């Protein structure tokens, strides 16, 4: 049953993205999973606010109608099969090996990691057992969990429990590997937009080789980090695609996924602020007053943020922790060592492989690879997220050292795909130009004088 629910999620997301996403079913389902999970979790919250009971038929019903319309309107595309090149096969082989190390491990381990038990999956279980968010939120002060965190993952796990008919947490923690698949599918899709198949395949396999990313997806299954990672890279990637190619569909997808990031975790709200400001800034700079663009830029973030703000207000939820001057002074004093720790972590090859050094290289070489200044959007978003991490750490109500020890690697893992995407875009540009030179017909040889 859990597999059906996960597949349903991916299909729902694909239906949702259909007006904007040009892709085949595999990528459509992968990318669709993140959108579907966000939509279903938001649906549960809106139902709760509207006092509509959570039953299988009330939750699934509207989607079944949407599937009908989708299937009626869909023109099946004829897949174009091309035999993979040797580099693509090598990338696939490495991906299979990496997944063999992680997938059985995730299925073997019961739900046990701290934040999953204390926070994300706990809320999901409580919402399911209570049949709504109110009873848990009214008792929130009893628990150690932060009640103000966004509810994408908790309410999505509630959706899975509704489908299964029991709080089956071992089954539900599959949501993290599914968000990981969504991340990989989206990453591959974006690279195919900007480059050739071998580059897309190799860099996607390289993403699988980033230890901390797999560790978070499979060892910390049940956390919200992989969900927000997928949403951030998709939001940034589509924003860049819009800057580059000016398709309105990319703009819509960028606004949608940036909003999903905000519905996933607090770091995602920071990302939404940055990406939203960049999008609005560009629209203003170019004096684009297209109402559709502005509406999307307003509506998606509003949908992702407003219902939860309303629910928090309704149930009297406040962000926990008292931010004292003393704590901020202590945190500021240890800021430079913290920055050093942050850089050391990011540049540790065993944890993040060479993603961050390659980002620096990409910034230095992007012009030589034939890219213009628009490319800098991607590194700028990486820098913005880093700034966000630093800001959260310095203003956090708890000890900086403790926060770094407990969360820095996870938070950096949200940014690492974006860093690798930046490097991949530069490499793809260089690679495609070289391929084009190879494919171009050789210039005609000069006619030699005939010597008789």
């Amino acid at each position, binding site marked *: 049953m859990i597999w059906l629910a996960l597949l349903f999620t991916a299909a729902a997301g694909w239906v949702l993205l259909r007006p904007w996403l040009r892709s085949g079913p595999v990528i459509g389902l992968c990318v669709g999973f993140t959108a579907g999970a966000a939509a279903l979790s938001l649906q549960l919250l809106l139902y709760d606010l509207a006092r509509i009971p959570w039953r299988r038929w009330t939750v699934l019903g509207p989607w079944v109608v949407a599937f009908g319309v989708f299937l009626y309107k869909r023109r099946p595309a004829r897949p174009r099969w091309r035999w993979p090149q040797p580099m693509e096969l090598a990338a696939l082989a490495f991906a299979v090996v990496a997944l063999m190390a992680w997938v059985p491990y995730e299925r073997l381990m*019961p739900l*046990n990691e701290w934040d999953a038990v204390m926070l994300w999956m706990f809320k999901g279980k409580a919402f399911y057992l209570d049949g709504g968010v109110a*009873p848990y939120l009214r008792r929130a002060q009893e628990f150690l969990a932060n009640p103000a965190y966004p509810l994408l993952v908790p309410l999505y796990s509630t959706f899975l429990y509704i489908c299964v008919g029991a709080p089956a947490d071992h089954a539900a923690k599959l949501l993290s590997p599914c968000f990981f698949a969504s991340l990989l599918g989206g990453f591959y899709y974006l690279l195919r937009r900007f480059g050739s198949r071998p580059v897309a395949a190799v860099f996607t396999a390289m993403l699988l080789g980033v*230890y901390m990313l797999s560790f978070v997806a499979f060892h910390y299954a049940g956390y919200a980090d992989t969900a927000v990672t997928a949403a951030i890279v998709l939001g940034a990637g589509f924003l860049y695609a819009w800057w580059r190619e000016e398709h309105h569909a990319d703009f819509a997808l960028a606004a949608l996924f940036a909003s999903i990031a905000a519905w996933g975790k607090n770091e995602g709200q920071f990302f939404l602020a940055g990406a939203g400001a960049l999008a609005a800034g560009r629209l203003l700079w170019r004096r684009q007053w297209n109402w559709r663009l502005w509406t999307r830029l307003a509506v998606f973030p509003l949908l992702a943020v407003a219902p939860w703000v309303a629910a928090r207000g309704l149930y009297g939820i406040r962000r926990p922790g008292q931010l004292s001057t003393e704590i901020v002074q202590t945190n500021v004093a240890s800021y430079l060592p913290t920055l050093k720790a942050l850089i050391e972590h990011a540049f540790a*090859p065993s944890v993040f492989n060479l993603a961050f050094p390659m980002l620096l290289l990409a910034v230095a070489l992007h012009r030589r690879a034939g890219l213009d200044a628009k490319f800098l959007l991607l590194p700028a978003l990486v820098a913005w997220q880093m700034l966000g991490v630093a800001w959260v750490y310095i203003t956090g109500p708890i000890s900086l050292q403790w926060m770094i020890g407990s969360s820095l690697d996870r938070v950096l893992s949200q940014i690492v795909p974006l860093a690798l995407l930046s490097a991949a875009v530069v490499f793809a540009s260089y690679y495609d130009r*070289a391929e084009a030179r190879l494919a171009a017909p050789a210039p005609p040889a000069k006619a030699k004088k005939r010597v008789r």
Partner: protein
Amino acid sequence: MLRAQAHRVLLAALFGVWVLVAWPKLGEQFASLEDWQRKLGGRSIEERAAMVDYPAYLVAEQVRQATPAGACVLFLAYTGPEHVNYYKTRFDYYLYPRRVVVQANTAAAADNCPYLAVFRDSAQNLQVEAFHGAWDDEQLRQRLAHLEKVHAGPHVEIYRARP
């Protein structure tokens, strides 16, 4: 010819370096997987949870069976100070919607809490973090004398206020 194909060579080289850097951690993960498969393989998910989260899962299961869903349970926990928080989160998770209070103090009280669970952590955990709370066996005996014992099992005894 090789110069014209330099981009392909570079892609292959980059991928090779990436795999080389990733390989040691991947090897560690394979070793970890093998280790856990040896310990947990072939067991049900409940048995695995009981082994990995020992003794929290085992204790929570006994409390869950001995108390109604709407109950409040006060745990008098003989465990280390950091473990008090740990068990609070575990018991909250496993026992929801019951109200759970965990204190490392035999004199602890909680309002409207008819169930009392005397919980003793495993020796292994107490070796990692020693008990630093307030534990008076005589006081506990007197307190329990007024209550009805509803369950006694590994690591936990459960009592209920007499009607």
